[in-house]
């Protein structure tokens, strides 16, 4: 029971920060609304004189782009305002407190991420319902597609959690790493298809991204949703996503152990 209470308290850290600053929530709502309208308008405008391109029709492209915007809410909570980023903790030396609590740092990190993702899910789901009702996004073609999409999205978020964890773990090993973080975040956005569906990119780019975990976070689930990946091919993609989960879980577990040895504060 106490463990559940600890878990609940850790999970609500970042969402509470957001819930206590109504201006930020208003900003999120406004930003999300404007972003959805702009993205939908852009892709509709681009398709005005074009039929299907890169295997995506107009409605598929709009749906993909809008869902990508909504999905970005899942892990976009601001930890910096509460000075709870790993980067900030390393900068101010407060990371040592993560190791003094009765909750192991890796569990705190996982619970906090879970809370953030659940909170983000409420926003994303709310946005999805509104967009669906307004006809901005298309519903999935069948219940089977919807089911596979949910499983793929879950795996995608799991992979994303580990990718973000690797980025944060990097902070333990480098004194100054703002730029490395920015490069990796950029790679994550580009190679997961946040900026534009990967299907629009050249073949070599799609092949390259196939060897990296980023496309498993967003491109795969969204492509399943819009029908760009057929249900018959979805099994392989789900297996690849699951494989990334296992590989990254083992890797980050190993890095957590190495990271703990490097924690020094106030001169060691």
């Amino acid at each position, binding site marked *: 029971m106490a463990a559940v209470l600890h878990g609940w308290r850790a999970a609500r850290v970042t969402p509470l920060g957001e819930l206590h600053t109504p201006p930020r929530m208003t900003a999120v709502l406004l930003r999300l609304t404007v972003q959805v309208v702009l993205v939908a308008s852009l892709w509709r405008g681009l398709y005005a004189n074009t039929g299907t391109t890169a295997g995506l029709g107009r409605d598929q492209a709009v749906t993909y782009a809008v869902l990508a915007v909504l999905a970005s809410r899942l892990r976009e909570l601001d930890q910096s305002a509460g000075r709870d980023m790993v980067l900030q903790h390393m900068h101010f030396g407060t990371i040592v407190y993560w190791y003094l609590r009765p909750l192991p740092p890796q569990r705190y990190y996982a619970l906090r991420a879970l809370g953030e993702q659940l909170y983000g899910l409420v926003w994303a789901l709310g946005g999805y319902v509104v967009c669906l009702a307004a006809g901005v996004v298309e519903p999935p073609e069948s219940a089977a597609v919807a089911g596979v999409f949910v499983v793929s999205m879950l795996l995608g978020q799991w992979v994303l959690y580990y990718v973000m964890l690797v980025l944060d773990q990097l902070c333990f090993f480098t004194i*100054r790493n703002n730029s490395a973080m920015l490069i990796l975040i950029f790679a994550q956005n580009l190679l997961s298809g946040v900026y534009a569906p990967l299907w629009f990119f050249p073949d070599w780019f799609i092949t390259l991204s196939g060897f990296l975990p980023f496309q498993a976070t967003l491109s795969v689930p969204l492509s399943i949703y819009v029908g760009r990946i057929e249900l018959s091919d979805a099994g392989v993609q789900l297996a690849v996503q699951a494989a990334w989960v296992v590989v990254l879980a083992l890797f980050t577990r190993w890095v957590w152990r190495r990271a703990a040895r490097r924690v020094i504060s106030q001169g060691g």
Partner: protein
Amino acid sequence: MSQKTMKSLRIVWRITLLNIRASMEYRTEFLLMIAIGAIWQVSVIVFATVLLARFTGMGGWDSSDVLLIPAIRMLAHGLFVLLLGRMHFIGRQIQEGKIDVYLLRPMPVHRQVQLAFFPTNAIGDLLVAAGLMVGALSRSDLDWTTGRVSYLVAAIIGGMLLEAALFTVVASACLRFPAADYWSRWLEELLGTFGSYPLNVLPRAVGGFLTYALPLAFVAYLPTAVLTGHDQDIGVPYWLAAASPLLGIAGYLAARLVWRWSLKHYTGVNG
């Protein structure tokens, strides 16, 4: 130039040199920062190239004309990052209480904010932007007369000032409401995503929003329309589009007034 101005410039130059030396203390980080500037800009090029390849004749414009839009925007953005870009990081400086320190020093706060660190990533930004501009100009069929080149230079400076004006207004809001820092990230994202294409591909209302509510169109799209002779279907009267560089200057001056007013009403975390 008065003696006071010369002295100020000398101090700015010396602090900048110190900042460059400080940032070079961590060599790998220094090089990575240049890389991130370049990579960030390359992402805009990749996105633009992908769209241009898939959707030819975007908004009724030739590809070579469209390419001028990101070229102007990116060069303006690179100059903004180099000269006035620290406004973007005001939230952190407020959070760490640095503004309170700045207020005690005998130098304008705005200048101290700009001199807080050297923007190494601007080197990468400018390198890629200059490369894209050379590419866009070499592909262009336009007759590059002195007048057109002068307008191009004015458009780049105007774009830089307009971007600086937008971020200065957000920074001014941060002085009162630190959570407003959230908007600067969104603004950068909007500029990157929608500042590099003909806005006439968007519905009129959306284009109007990006012209009059958030004057993003005046950064690169409208000056490019003037340069390339697209005077129809641009959403504003032609004279207004032509006045884009002047709007940049006016916008920046107005933003500095807002900054000054906000600074007068600034209260630190200790009240």
